[in-house]
C-alpha cells in the first residue's frame, strides 16, 4: 500500500492529470484502504494551502453576475459550452486582450440559442409596444383616408348631377 501511495498517483489525481483508468483504480483503493483516503485528504489540504497563498478576493458584484448567468442557464436547461478568451499581441504582457468588465464571455457553441443581456427585455417590450401604436395609427389613417375618398366621390357625383340639371 505504501508503494501505491508513494508512486505519486495520488498527486497526479488531485491535480486532475490522472487518466480515467488511474482515477477508477484510485477510487477503488480509496474505498478499500483508509490510508489512501487519508493521504488523498492530506493532498487536497496541500492544494488548498498552495492556492490560499495566492488567493485574490473577487470583485464585489461578481456573484450577482454569476447568479444571473446561472439563472439563465437553469431556465434554458442548456449546459455551458467551453469558453476561449482571445489573445492580443499588443497587450502589455503579450497575453490576453482584456475585455471591459461588463462585456460578455464569448462562448463557442454549437447551440442554436442566443444569450442576451436582461436589459434587452425592455427594449423588446418597447419595440413591441411602439409597433402596436404604429399599427393602430396606420389602421386609423387608412380608414380616415378611405372615408375621405368616399366622401369626395359622393361630392363629385353630386356635382355632376347638378351640372346635368
Amino acid at each position, binding site marked *: 500500500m505504501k508503494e501505491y501511495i508513494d508512486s505519486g*498517483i495520488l498527486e497526479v489525481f488531485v491535480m486532475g492529470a490522472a487518466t480515467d483508468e488511474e482515477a477508477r483504480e484510485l477510487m477503488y483503493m480509496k474505498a478499500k484502504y483508509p490510508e489512501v483516503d487519508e493521504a488523498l485528504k492530506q493532498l487536497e489540504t496541500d492544494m488548498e*494551502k498552495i*492556492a490560499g497563498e495566492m488567493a485574490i478576493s*473577487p470583485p464585489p458584484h461578481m*456573484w450577482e453576475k454569476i447568479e444571473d448567468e446561472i439563472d439563465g442557464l437553469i431556465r434554458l436547461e442548456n449546459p455551458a459550452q*467551453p469558453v476561449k478568451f482571445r489573445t492580443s499581441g499588443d497587450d502589455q504582457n503579450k497575453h490576453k486582450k*482584456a475585455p471591459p468588465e461588463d462585456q460578455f464571455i464569448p462562448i463557442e457553441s454549437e447551440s442554436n440559442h442566443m444569450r442576451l443581456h436582461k436589459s434587452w427585455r425592455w427594449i423588446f417590450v418597447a419595440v413591441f409596444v411602439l409597433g402596436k401604436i404604429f399599427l393602430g395609427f396606420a389602421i386609423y389613417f387608412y380608414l380616415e383616408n378611405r372615408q375621405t375618398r368616399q366622401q369626395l366621390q359622393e361630392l363629385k357625383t353630386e356635382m355632376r348631377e347638378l351640372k346635368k340639371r
Partner: protein
Amino acid sequence: MNTRLQTSAPMGQSKSAAVLNLYNSYSAKLLGYIYEVVQNKPIAEQYLSAVFNDVPNELEEFSKSGTSAFCRLQIMAREKLVHFFEALENDTDKRAWENLPWVNNRYVTLMTSFQQQVFCDIHYQCKSAGSIAIELNKTEEEIRKTLKECFTIIRNGRINERVH
C-alpha cells in the same frame, strides 16, 4: 473540515445556493490560481465566472468524484484554461507566457528547477504527466515521483511555518 459538497437541499433553488456556498468558500483561492496562470485580472475573473457558471451542471460530479470541492473546482478551471493555451496562437505568445514569474509561490521557490518544471507544467500549464514525460525524456513514473517530492516540499514548508 468537511470539504465535500453538501447537496441535500431540493434541486431547484438549491443549485444556486450550492454554487453560492462554493463561491463563498473557494472563489478567492480559485481566482488566485487562475490569475497565476493567465496573469491578467479581468481575464482571470472571466474564467472564474465561467467555472462557476458550469458548477450547476457538475453538482452531481462534485458529490461522486471523490475529490474535495476545491480540487474539483480547480480541475474544472484547468479544463477551461486549456482554451487559454490554445489561444496562445504563436510561439512569441507562448514564450512570453512561459517566462512569466508565476513561480512567485513561496512553496514553489523551495523546489529544485526540475521539480519546479514538473510542478508548474502540471499545476499551471495543465499538462498531463505523460506529455511532460515525453517532453523531458523521462518516464511517467519519474514524473509522478517528482510530483510527489514537490508535495513533500510543500508539506514540509507548511510544517516549518507552524514551528516558527
